[in-house]
């Protein structure tokens, strides 16, 4: 599902992932179930020049493609933390690339930052569902896997309008109370992030 363009400047845009032949090591972190065969083939070609210094992590339960070579299969994003811990010390010229849904790739970005990688060493790209992680401006809680224009906050129950405003720190979109002016008067809920 390609992302819709937005007028909101904080909305990230994601160029295709690319390998940097000058880099020391690459990690390519892929979300199982989000990438189709065509995209996988493109990535295979793009990262072939650095294959000797590349570790591909396949995150999720579905099986990795058979014709792709070696994968490190991880149950979830948190497990990537131990992969990076084993690779310490991370170098200034290492690179980490991630592709999948936005909640997934921004989860990877948070782990990479924790491990000490600079933002310039981390590349993110979108694939799969447009579902969003939403941050409530009222209770500061998160609501995951949001596909609709209005969602009930998992933290405080307020009905939140999901905006395009994005926080890189939270890896989440802003949600603001939709019926604050007239309680109970809410627009129809539409599935806008399939």
């Amino acid at each position, binding site marked *: 599902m390609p992302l819709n363009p937005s007028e909101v400047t904080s909305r990230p845009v994601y160029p295709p992932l690319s390998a940097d032949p000058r880099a020391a090591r690459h990690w390519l972190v892929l979300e199982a179930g989000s990438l189709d065969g065509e995209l996988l083939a493109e990535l295979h070609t793009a990262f072939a020049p650095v294959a000797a210094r590349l570790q591909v992590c396949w995150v999720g339960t579905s099986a990795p493609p058979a014709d792709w070579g070696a994968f490190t299969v991880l149950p979830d994003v948190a497990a990537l933390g131990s992969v990076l811990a084993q690779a310490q010390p*991370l*170098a*200034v*010229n290492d690179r980490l690339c991630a592709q999948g849904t936005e909640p997934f790739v921004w989860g990877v970005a948070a782990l990479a930052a924790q491990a000490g990688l600079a933002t*310039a*060493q981390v590349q993110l790209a979108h694939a799969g569902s447009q579902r969003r992680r939403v941050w409530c401006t009222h209770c500061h809680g998160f609501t995951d896997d949001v596909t609709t224009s209005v969602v009930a906050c998992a933290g405080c129950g307020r009905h939140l309008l999901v905006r395009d405003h994005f926080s890189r720190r939270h890896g989440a979109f802003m949600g603001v109370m939709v019926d604050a002016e007239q309680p109970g008067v809410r627009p129809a809920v539409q599935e806008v992030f399939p």
Partner: protein
Amino acid sequence: MNGSSLTLRVVSATTLSPSLRHLQLASADGAPLPPTGAGAHVLFALPGAGRSHRNAYSLVNAPGSRSHYDIIVRRVAASRGGSAAVHETLQVGDTLQAQWPANLFAPVRGARRHVMVAGGIGITPFLSYLQDAGVRQAGFELHVCCREEERAVFAPWLPADAPVFFYWDADGHRLDTAALLARQPAGTHLSVCGPSELNASVLAAAATAGWPSAQVHTEHFGSGASGGTAFEAVLHKSGVRVQVAEDESLLDAIERIGVAAPCLCRGGACGVCITPLLDGEAEHRDHFLSPAEQAQFIMPCVSRARGARLVLDL
């Protein structure tokens, strides 16, 4: 206390080597000086033959000093007058005009580690880095390429425990830049200050080694880069023409005829002196303008004309 110019008095002047002189300067009226951070510089008006020269020098005193500033000045062989004046004319008790300090080379606060590479007198900004609490806490190493005999000159300026390594032009003593940059921990920032050839080679090595460009910083110096062939500059708004001599910069020439032109670093780095270019082909020597901007603007502190004439919107 705020302003744009300072009057400084020479408190002490010490010859460190045949080509290096240390000046300690205090405020002429005894007032506290504006505090500066590591990497700051001050633009001085120095007496010269027939006209005054404006040279920028890095401050080597500890960051935050209010009582005095320290600079170390290399006498440039083909001196336009500025560095020669520091070496030959200035005496203790003399006063100097200077601009307020500026800083185009501050250490990056988020850095997890600092790797510094200095070429010769390019060590000066790093002498203040080495006294900066943030740099010391993050961890650093300083690599200095200089003449073998200058090691002893710089040694007293370095903290005793500091990881400083010297290199000079002899087998077994040259800096292996590629090896230095190949394996540095993530979060390291590289800062380079030296002659343009050294800066260019270290920057190229960092790019080749895959360093993110946001983690590579450089400060250029070299007043020698301001000379070239003579040409005529037409100042459109002022309606005057000035001949720019071979040994002066376009900015020097503009100032010589009394046209006020803003400037800060006089080294093509800060962008303060940007001037719209109306006609003529420029030889751009700055480190600031993008190629697209260079089609419309010129930085007169370092850049010159390719042809016989430039028309500036000044």
